[in-house]
């Protein structure tokens, strides 16, 4: 829980700071947009965390997001080169492709004992290439498709904006199911056991290969769900959609307390981690400091958006460094306590010996 609380406090402070500097941060338009962004990242960050908890990695999830969106556009866009099928056909094809990719990668990793990093790296490039051939290097517009309402609409209408956008509803549903599966079911327990000690899991009679394969199917499947949301949000599908998203998801999982060695991490942490990633992203645009320049003219200082990656990278490094330092200090303190206990327990016999 230490990591969750730490990052949760950091997130609260960050939000408060941004709100003080620019009250528009919590204004309906920005807040709702940020919530939508958090939700879309959160959906596939939860997906990838299933794999990370078993000690694996899924680098292909960004490409899966792109392919799902591209397939939906190709199948159901009313505009050329879309094929103009009903929307549900497109969504079904997109999700089926995502699940099939997850299954194929999972089987390669577990049955052929290939390394997850390499299999999903190959998958990432291959799937990206597939998207590229489907859009033929151009874009397919979803203009006029009912899908666009998914990203922009929502429940609890507030003026022109919906307070809870549909992607957030999907995200909340994902959180609920994932929390149950990961933290309460036998399957979840097995994921942690495999990540903690694979051999122990095998010797306990757990069908390790099956459980692991399913984790890759879940990861790609939630990638597909996120892909539907991004397609609705972006509207113009090209091969660029979803590039490097796997890195955002991994970063969110690590910020939220997952260890890439496996066996650690909670849904709560991953949700907070995803929020952190998106709030930083948004905060770089929102942050402002009013000041008066030497000529006496009031001006506003803003962060340069080119710094986005520098800041995100620094935050991730800072988080893991802090975590490790706290860990090292704690274990050093434990060692010292054990040493003094050993010294204390060693002296009485000596005293006895003298007395005897």
């Amino acid at each position, binding site marked *: 829980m230490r990591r969750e609380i730490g990052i949760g406090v950091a997130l609260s402070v960050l939000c408060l700071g941004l709100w003080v500097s620019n009250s528009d941060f919590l204004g309906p338009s920005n807040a709702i947009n940020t919530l939508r962004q958090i939700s879309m990242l959160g959906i596939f960050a939860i997906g990838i965390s299933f794999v990370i908890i078993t000690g694996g990695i899924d680098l292909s999830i960004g490409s899966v997001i792109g392919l799902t969106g591209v397939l939906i556009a190709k199948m159901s866009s009313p505009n050329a080169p879309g094929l103009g099928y009903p929307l549900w056909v497109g969504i079904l094809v997109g999700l089926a492709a995502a699940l099939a990719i997850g299954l194929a990668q999972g089987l390669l990793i577990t049955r052929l004992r290939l390394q997850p990093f390499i299999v999903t790296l190959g998958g990432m490039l291959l799937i990206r290439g597939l998207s590229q051939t489907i859009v033929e290097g151009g874009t397919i517009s979803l203009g006029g498709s009912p899908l666009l309402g998914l990203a922009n609409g929502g429940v609890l209408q507030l003026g022109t904006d919906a307070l809870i956008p549909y992607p957030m509803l999907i995200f909340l549903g994902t959180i609920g199911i994932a929390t149950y599966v990961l933290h309460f079911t036998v399957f979840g327990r097995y994921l942690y056991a495999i990540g903690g000690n694979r051999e122990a899991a095998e010797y306990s009679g757990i069908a390790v290969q099956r459980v692991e394969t399913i984790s890759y199917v879940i990861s790609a499947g939630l990638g597909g769900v996120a892909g539907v949301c991004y397609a609705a949000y972006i509207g113009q599908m090209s091969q660029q959609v979803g590039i490097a998203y796997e890195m955002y998801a991994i970063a969110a999982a690590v910020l939220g307390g997952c260890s890439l060695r496996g066996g650690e991490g909670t849904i709560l942490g991953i949700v907070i981690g995803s929020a952190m990633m998106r709030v930083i992203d948004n905060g770089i645009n929102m942050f402002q400091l009013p000041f008066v320049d030497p000529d006496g003219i009031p001006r506003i200082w803003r962060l340069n958006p080119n710094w986005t990656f520098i800041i995100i990278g620094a935050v991730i490094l800072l988080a893991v460094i802090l975590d490790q330092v706290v860990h090292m200090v704690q274990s050093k303190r434990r060692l010292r306590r054990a040493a003094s206990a*050993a010294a204390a327990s*060693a002296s009485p016999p000596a005293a006895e010996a003298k007395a005897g």
Partner: protein
Amino acid sequence: MRSISKRFVGVLALEGVSLELRAGEVLALMGENGAGKSTLMKILSGVHAPDAGEIAVDGRPAAIDGVSAAHRLGIALIHQELLLAPNLDIASNLFLGNELPASTPARGRLLRPVPRARLFTQATRLLARVGLDLSASTPVSRLTAGQMQLCEIAKALGQNARILVMDEPTSSLTAGESEKLFAIIRQLKSEGIGIIYISHRMDEVLDLADRITVLRDGRHVGDLARAEASHDAIVRLMVGRQLSGQYFPERQPTRGEAVLEVRELRVEGAPEGVSFVAHRGEILGFAGLVGSGRTELMQAIFGATPALAGTLQLGGEAFRPLAPRAAIDRGVYLAPEDRKRHGLVLPMSIARNVSLPNIGSYARLGWLHRSEEQRVTALEMKRLNIKAKDQATRVLNLSGGNQQKVVLGKWLAMSPRVLILDEPTRGIDVGAKAEIYRHMAALAEQGVCILMVSSDMEEILGMSDRVIVMHERRIQGELERSELSQHRLAQLMTGQRPSEGAAA
């Protein structure tokens, strides 16, 4: 188990081995390393499938086609390397793979909730049964090796195991923990559980076993009842020749000038510093219970974990090993206790392991001279009689004895001044043991100073010229060869003062 055979790529691991275990019996399974004990037990517990032969439980033929099938038959293997998930708590580990009652339908099992409260109560009961005074919600990462061992037993009991296989269960336990384990084994025996006990430690086997089955080279070579079992009888069966208990080489120890002087060296967790002097051509034994601080002391001298305080002198000059490199450059080498983790790079070849610590001398301008590496390796393989197909054989595929010889080989190739051997023959079969002892004697003869840490009483008695006994990270006493006796050693190891012992 009847006529079990198993062939691995290139080797026949088991050939027609039969074995019988009765309820409420402790059967000791003995044999040199590579005799096929572990393979046989892996077949029984469903890890490997036999190529031929059959297994019957309670008189009924049983098909054991996986770990879960063995579990259902009440067979549980307690592995030598403890197999628990450190990130989960005790209760989760005890019921891992076994969370739901057997009556739960197979469909949708994975998505059922874990009954935490019920498992916690059951785990608490199991912990009480093995005498472990811990909460079932303690994370396994906080347990000692001994506590983990007891957890493994509790786990097996939780599966209603009636056949319990223990593979070297005491290898990581302290003496006190071992005693506790033996009491539990006797308790389980009285409850009608059959136990197969694999161990290299003769005294344990003679103490615990009702019967002893000996394997050699994948064949069953004999059964001994408790009455007819003796140290010599077992060793005779294991090696197939009379060793007459005398595999320690005859030596004429000569103590040269002081090589290594240790003054007030203090390691982490130690109440005070330790001081001693080791001489040229001497084999200095370090006896003590597991956890008495011997390994930590050796690691400090080798620079793997630098000491907190104290000074070292090597050949009269100051010696400050802050990293292993500093020790290696001065000719101080360590063959570590855990050779698989600290002594060898398992997936690399013999030749590459041998050249690793001295790689610079095999290279010119960064270009490695393979021929030189091969020449040196060939020399060491011949000198140490390392049995392997060739130099390119991966160390991973060697037996424990041959692995240890590779560790020795890599240091011998660099002419040691001080050679630290931490548990030099742990988990090594009798034949290879005798060879390693011969090499130690030869090295001492050449003037090498050998520090030997050992928990094997026979080894300490048989090899040391002088013994330093440690207790709770301090030096408890020092014995010359002439004063050595099992009794004196045991007294010091358990914390008696030298003066009391002498008086008694």
